[in-house]
């Protein structure tokens, strides 16, 4: 199919997705077109046409329809189409203001290997406020693990996220972050109410062979207090550095 035919096909699938009943095995328009694309030789001229078509669809997508963007980014990710640059363009050229859509594009970008800087994450104030879990997932994937998990502790305290919200991310976070996750999980277990909420977290750790998270953390000498102290130390160092630069220009302090 030519580029324009692919544009029509992709747009049709995205329009049909929210209104089409699942097929017998859960088939959906987006799933079907994703499957078609994955069957095409990635080195073929047709794949070039698909990439170009998808770039056009991304650029011309409605700026106020989160469902469309969720389906579109799913299509890109599951079809393995190289569309990081065009998504990144749309994100960084400030064409999208809707926080939910920004959170969806951020999730897609980290899945495509993009890493957000602490400043970029900090700038996404509305995403962080309205979609804290998605923001946290992006922050963790971007390497801002301590501050992201530390932030989750606060969100759990205020009830902005629940242990159920967190639990579906635990397998990925544990695989990628290991002991760092355990340190914070130990703190989360202290924060959440006993019984049901706490059990949701505990059952994951029991299932991966860590029946007592707190004990494991204490045995390894990696308590949350130690981590918090380190964050405070880093913060102190940064403010010292700022003060030093204010007084001495850009020169780094020598220990």
């Amino acid at each position, binding site marked *: 199919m030519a580029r324009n035919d692919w544009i029509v096909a992709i747009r049709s699938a995205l329009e049909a997705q929210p209104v089409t009943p699942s097929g017998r095995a859960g088939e959906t328009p987006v799933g079907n077109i994703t499957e078609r694309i994955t069957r095409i030789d990635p080195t073929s001229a047709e794949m070039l046409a698909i990439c170009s078509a998808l770039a056009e669809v991304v650029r011309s997508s409605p700026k106020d329809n989160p469902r469309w963007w*969720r389906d579109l980014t799913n299509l890109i990710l599951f079809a393995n189409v190289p569309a990081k640059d065009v998504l990144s363009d749309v994100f960084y050229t400030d064409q999208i203001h809707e926080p939910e859509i920004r959170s*969806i594009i951020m999730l897609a970008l980290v899945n495509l290997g993009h890493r957000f800087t602490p400043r970029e994450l900090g700038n996404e104030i509305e995403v962080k406020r309205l979609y804290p879990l998605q923001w946290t997932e992006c922050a963790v994937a971007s390497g801002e693990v301590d501050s992201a998990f530390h932030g989750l502790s606060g969100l759990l305290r205020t009830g902005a996220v629940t242990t*159920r919200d967190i639990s579906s991310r635990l397998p990925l976070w544990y695989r990628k972050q290991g002991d760092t996750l355990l340190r914070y999980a130990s703190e989360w277990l202290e924060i959440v109410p006993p019984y049901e909420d706490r059990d949701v977290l505990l059952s994951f750790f029991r299932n991966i062979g860590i029946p007592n998270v707190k004990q494991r953390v204490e045995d390894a000498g990696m308590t949350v207090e130690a981590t918090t102290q380190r964050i405070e130390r880093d913060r102190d160092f940064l403010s010292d550095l700022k003060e030093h630069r204010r007084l001495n220009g850009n020169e780094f302090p020598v220990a």
Partner: protein
Amino acid sequence: MSQYADFKDSYALQASKIEDDPQLMDADKELFRAHIEAWNASSDITQHVADFCHENQLRGPRLNVNHTETLGHGHDKREFLLLLTTGGAMTKDAAEELLRYWTLLDDDEQVVEVHNQIGQQFMGQYLMWSFRDSTALADVPNANLACRLGLDEAPDKTYLFWGLRLPTATGAHLPTAFDAWEHLDRWAPGGHTVPNEQCRDRYPDGFPEVVHRPVRFDSLSVSIR
């Protein structure tokens, strides 16, 4: 020539499956014909028909499925991951890792974790198909199960299977051709799946099959495999 006659010429198989479906009442078929006559060519005819079928789901007789009965369900693996990423607003990586984690657990542990982790998410959109032979979930290997259910067996397809119990408020119906519009070539009236040719010698009969509104994952009763 009427628009319906044109439709029958171009889509003979689909038209005959709808006309011959004993579960549909004459009034339903009459409405269907009238809908096609009203087509004004501003949209694709297949989309026009699909719109009608989507609006007329669950027209088959309601069946007596006890809420303690476990139904089986097969789901395309890619679609399952799409469900997780869409419903749970999580990354593809997180969804894949979640599924990998579940498949490493014992059956009972997995059911608890699925309830914990995605219990509030729906298993589908608008409509679900399930089969009434939960023993097959334990006894029949996945590949054979897909074949016996008449699912598309392309080499790059992987299916997941699980068991579920319908909440008391969710009714099960005998499927009609309206429910099956998107896959009429793999469907026959009568409420049984049509095994694919490759396994008809081993499995001449399909499973009894029902359609119902999608249920949440907290209705999962037999683990995903």
